[in-house]
């Protein structure tokens, strides 16, 4: 492999010319290796703390509400409901976390959800076009909206806060225009099935849906395979890997959680279509953010804009595509939401942007950019979802729900700031 020619040229030639009279810097890493290893471990731990922290919080919140609702929270029907109710917020959060990692914000997604839903409804309900055409046109509108906002942010250089605040008004106004201020409903069945539908009974089953379980099993197998391949690759490159029993334990844990979820779904109405859409999006965007050059550039821009620019990152181009992508995902959420509500309302999607943004920050994204994960945002969104759902089941007043959600967001960001300050002090 000839990937590092300069290094070869420069450093294989002769040893370092040592001069006995040269004052030497005190060796920081010069002590026994163990210290270094402990430091590394601590470093890895503190860096993963905000990630692992929210997983623990997630489990605790599920446990709490399961207990408070006498297990109602985890009943098959309710588990299905949580995904149907918060699916579109999660879809928005995927795009939003990328926007936030790059150091921007998008306040317009709620309005874009309304606009794309309205356009789709006009095409399908009012003009009688087939459902697939409505979906395509909605996605097209989303891309255009994204390109519009990306243009102003990336090429004109207006802060995203302002551009998307303007967009929030602009696209809400357009929605009212498109709908002539009245709701449209209902959609034909095939459109309604996009988010309201289930895939079940394909493989039969008695009281539960075998297909759902098979899909889950295939998913787990795929996950295990990719993890194994990953591990083999690391071993081939002589990198440290976790001990094999630990590795297996992790796989088993994931398998158990997924199968338990599938089991509950199978005993309700089967596999929700929206969960399939969500699954595909999460996988795709996890890969994009962690394994591609584009994803790396997003983190670089958010982490240190000037350094990214001086490393040859085409910042404007990347920023533009971040917003195009956000527009696209907002359109997907728009289709899902209009499908679920089986129609389009002028006031649809209000406050969605805030839920999506909250999901990202609870999920460990940093307010100053450069930090965040798609999986984190998903867990953040689910924390919000489970809390709302749990409080609804308990019949807690809407006013109290709002206050609690607000406090959770505040505490999550306070935790982030606290972490950062500690990291800064250690520097």
């Amino acid at each position, binding site marked *: 492999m000839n*990937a*590092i020619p*300069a*290094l070869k040229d420069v450093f294989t030639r002769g040893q370092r010319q040592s001069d006995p009279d*040269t004052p030497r810097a005190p060796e920081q890493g010069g002590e026994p290796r163990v210290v270094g*290893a402990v430091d*590394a471990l601590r*470093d890895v731990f503190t860096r993963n703390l905000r990630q692992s922290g929210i997983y623990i919080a997630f489990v605790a919140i599920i446990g709490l509400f399961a207990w408070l609702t006498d297990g109602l929270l985890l009943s098959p029907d309710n588990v299905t409901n949580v995904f149907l109710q918060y699916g579109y917020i999660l879809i928005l959060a995927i795009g939003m976390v990328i926007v936030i990692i790059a150091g921007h914000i998008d306040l317009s997604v709620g309005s874009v959800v309304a606009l794309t839903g309205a356009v789709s409804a006009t095409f399908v309900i009012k003009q009688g076009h087939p459902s697939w055409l409505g979906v395509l046109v909605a996605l097209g509108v989303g891309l255009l909206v994204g390109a519009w906002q990306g243009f102003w942010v990336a090429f004109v250089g207006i802060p995203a806060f302002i551009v998307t605040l303007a967009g929030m008004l602009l696209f809400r106004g357009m929605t009212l225009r498109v709908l002539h201020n009245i709701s449209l409903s209902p959609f034909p069945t095939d459109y309604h099935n996009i988010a309201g539908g289930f895939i079940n009974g394909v493989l039969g089953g008695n009281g539960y849906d075998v297909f759902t379980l098979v899909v889950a099993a295939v998913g787990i197998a795929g996950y295990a395979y990719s993890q194994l391949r990953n591990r083999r690759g690391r071993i081939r490159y002589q990198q440290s890997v976790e001990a094999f029993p630990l590795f297996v334990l992790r796989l088993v844990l994931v398998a158990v959680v997924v199968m338990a979820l599938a089991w509950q779904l199978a005993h309700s109405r089967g596999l929700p279509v929206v969960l399939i859409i969500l699954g595909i999006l999460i996988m795709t965007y996890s890969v994009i953010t962690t394994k591609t050059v584009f994803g790396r550039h997003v983190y670089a821009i958010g982490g*240190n804009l000037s350094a990214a620019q001086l490393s040859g990152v*085409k910042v404007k181009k990347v920023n533009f595509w971040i917003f195009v992508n956000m527009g696209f995902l907002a359109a997907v959420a728009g289709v899902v939401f209009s499908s679920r509500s089986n129609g389009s309302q002028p006031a649809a999607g209000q406050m969605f942007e805030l839920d999506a943004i909250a999901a990202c920050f609870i999920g460990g994204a940093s307010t100053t950019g450069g930090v965040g994960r798609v999986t984190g945002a998903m867990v953040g969104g689910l924390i919000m979802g489970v809390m709302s759902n749990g409080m609804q089941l308990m019949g807690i007043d809407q006013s109290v729900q709002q206050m609690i959600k607000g406090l959770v967001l505040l505490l999550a960001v306070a935790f982030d700031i606290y972490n950062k300050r500690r990291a800064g002090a250690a520097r």
Partner: protein
Amino acid sequence: MAQPILEMRSITKTFPGVKALQDVSLSVAPGEVHAICGENGAGKSTLMKVLSGVYPHGTYDGEILFEGEEVAFGSINDSEARGIVIIHQELALVPYLSVAENIFLGNERVRRGLINWNQANSEASALLRRVGLDELPVTPVGHLGVGKQQLVEIAKALSKKVRLLILDEPTAALNDTDSEHLLGLLRQLQAEGITSIMISHKLNEIAEIADSTTIIRDGRTIETLDMHADKVTQERIIKGMVGRDLDHRFPPHEPSVRDEEILRIENWTVHHPTDPDRVVVDDASLYVRAGEVVGIAGLMGAGRTELAMSVFGRSYGRNITGKVFVRGREVTIRDVDDAIGHGIAYATEDRKKYGLNLIEDIRTNISAASLRKFSSFGWINANEEIRVAEEYRQSMKIKAPTVLATAGKLSGGNQQKVVLSKWIHTDPDVLILDEPTRGIDVGAKYEIYTIINRLADAGKAVVVISSELPELIGICDRIYTLAFGRITGVLPREQATQENLMELMTKERDTVR
């Protein structure tokens, strides 16, 4: 001689790992203009910050006597209460507020809780007349040029009943007329009994106006010259400013210059990005050969970094004109990506601000400028990335347990090695290293010099920009000098002495032409 108005005795100030000031003493007679000279980083500004209370009493050793009594300033407000006012190099005015508002900022003319604008504006007018500035007190400061803003700063100082005025590089950003006016004003204030301390790089101005000059080098007082008695020349000051021993600070290196010319810049002119009338780099031409280490010497504000960054993908400035040749062929460089593509690398002088993503790990930083090499169709091979980063960690002796350690937690020297690794991996033909050893300790410096030598031996062209003249003389084959945006000379290693360089670096406009 009368009792000194200010006496600083044995001031020692340490920052973590660095002794910025060591046993510095300064004595200023009442009513004089006292100049302080020294190279960049010699400790001049630190000394003034100690004096003005920016570094409060207790964070330094030594004592300060003002008007005969010992003082212990806890903040800048304390020193201002005693009539010591400092005017920083970067002006501290609010551009959107008026002249009068700026003058009385933090010191408002208040009656019954409300600002008395009539009083403020009329007092401001009087102060403006005193400093010879013909502007209305209601004009927003942003509408004034730098020279006039400087005068507003002085008016602000006068409003605080100043006894000792400290000016840090007051004329650095001024043109000749404005400088002349400012120096005239200092003389006038002197006649009114106000003592001034002036930090300046412009030796001709010092020779013209100063009554005495204190020279600081490497955080120590070298000498104080009486400018009237000794018939002090500019050469005499230069001699004091330089002159360190160079023993064993640089690895031995046989020049490896080849005939092949790698980079040539011709008639390069760059204008200031926000002030397009100001020429920052003026008609500069230079070339670098394969295996050659070329230095660029210049004082602060001479346009060194601006020259480098404007060549590196137009990262600085506007209205850039001139030609760049790489290996004899003229190239067009529109952005950083183009520059990297043409084999140019630029390691910035400010690692933390422009060089590194401090919240990411070493690996991510090393691969940041060469992700293409680690990816196919946009997919990054993370294992390959880690392997390469690991090789650099070992060969560059980056002191970190793994390449997954956060870059922000490394020491300055190790951060610099990460930056160098990043650029070496882009496989450049020419590396421009801007202040490669700023803020790092002596041992790490030695290692960086060794790396530079190896790069040259491998046939790379290396350009080193540095404020430390001994460093340039110690490692460069040829040194260009830059003064006020112009290239004022080029000296081969044999002829490069600190005195020669300093003379070329302080060459004024008229003597160049």
